[in-house]
């Protein structure tokens, strides 16, 4: 991951030096695709970890919040802003991981509606 970032940044500086317009276009496309793949990966892990909350309310909230956050920022195009949001997402992922674990350790009884559904 870090290695890839280093490579792309070197590639980018190379491009700047040579000013090849055709290549720049191609490069931006690749970059967009890469970040799209990365985003999908982040999204999937956020949802997967959110599902691990033992508490009904926290689980539902986490999943809903992740979905809504991605929907909200769908049209985000500014590279810098996107980078910040992704960093925020990874930070949230760590929080969810830890808190889902705590939620599992101190479980309460299931709620009435959870029992009815099953």
């Amino acid at each position, binding site marked *: 991951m870090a290695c890839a970032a280093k490579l792309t940044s070197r590639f980018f500086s190379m491009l700047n030096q040579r000013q090849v317009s055709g290549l720049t276009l191609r490069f931006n496309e690749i970059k967009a695709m890469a970040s799209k793949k990365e985003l999908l990966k982040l999204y999937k892990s956020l949802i997967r970890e959110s599902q691990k*909350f033992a508490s*009904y*309310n*926290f689980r*539902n*909230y*986490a999943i809903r919040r992740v979905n*809504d956050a991605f929907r909200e920022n769908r049209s985000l195009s500014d590279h810098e802003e996107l980078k910040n949001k992704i960093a925020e997402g990874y930070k949230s992922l760590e*929080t*969810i991981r*830890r*808190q889902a674990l*705590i*939620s599992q350790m101190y479980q*309460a*009884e*299931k*709620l*009435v*509606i*959870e*029992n*009815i559904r099953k």
Partner: protein
Amino acid sequence: MYNLIKTGTSRLFPSGLNKIPKVTTAWLREITTENKFKIKDEFEGRPLYLDAQATTPLDPRVLDEMMPYLTSYYGNPHSRTHAYGWESEAAVEKARLQVANLIAADPKEIIFTSGATESNNIAVKGVARFYAAKKKHIITTQTEHKCVLDSCRALEAEGFKVTYLPVNTNGLISLEELDKAITPDTSLVSIMTVNNEIGVKQPIGEIGRLCRSKKVFFHTDAAQAAGKVPLNVQDMNIDLMSISGHKVYGPKGIGAIYVRRRPRVRVEAIQSGGGQERGIRSGTVPTPLAVGLGRACEISQDDMEYDHARITRLSQRLMNVIFSELSHVIRNGDPVHTYPGCINLSFAYVEGESLLMALKDVALSSGSACTSASLEPSYVLRAIGTDEDLAHSSIRFGIGRFTTEEEVDYTARKCIDHVTRLREMSPLWEMVQEGIDLKSIQWSQH
């Protein structure tokens, strides 16, 4: 499951034999599912939580921020001689900034307390006592929280004059009456932002402007409002404000008070001690709790629009179902100037306590948690002129950040079923159906 076994066994073995072999549970469940639709239906699992005005669950993001200060970083934030103290102090100061940002204040104007009750005490008693030599009059409303009213009672015993402003039938105060009540002797006006029982939102901006023009300090109890509706102490001319941690998905046992510095508001401290928090609230600041309150305020600020939109939607959903299927339901308090997460409904011809007993699988309240032990009707409802019988039949639905659509639907369904059932049993309801006006009846006196 645990509930089911408990109720099941206590019925089978009244002597209190609560250890039964596991093999019998399936058989027990069969018996109870047969009784599922009986009047006193047993339910399996924990009740749903719809009492967001009493308290809110701790947000996992808040706990995550607090954990390091509950484990590794345990220093006293007031210790100036070592790193343990410095790191705690830095955390407390960061939290102070987060709280200040929520209400557009300066961090120096935020003082950590044990909760909104303490904040209200400091504000009301502190200001009144400090300016006692010059001014001895205080104005508040009849629908305030108990801690403000009781602080005022205490001041009355000390020789202060207190005006308890009446409210209109929608729960809002009248600005003309407030204007008339302010005298040159008035030192403080204390009016809560969002009412804890009926959710009514007072015109804080207008009240602030009026108080500023008359040079009277304005305190608002924003325990139910901070983090839920936009508040700005500069635009709204607020001089003192109380905030509670556990109403904004933060930890219990912490709150804050905003005390304006320019123009300066002085308060007499209630607690004597080490002089922490600018001498206004002595005692070590609990670092983990302060950090929790700070983070809770930050989340509420970031997500205010998101949460508000969702709570409005859920609140509409609940009311649509209930109002479409039940008649004679009255919403207490103004329907427009209100916080949507607090819905106070009166179900006519149903006794509120019996409805609460029937709705055991939903955690609801008939009003304030502080007064829920008494069977007296709420003083807030009496202040807005609700009839005695309707005041007795009120239920408060509190919707919060973690409430789901499913929970709202379940609550509405259960509520409708039980109100219908209780009404069918009521002779009063029968008379109403026959077209008899209950108010015209002369009940015989014995």
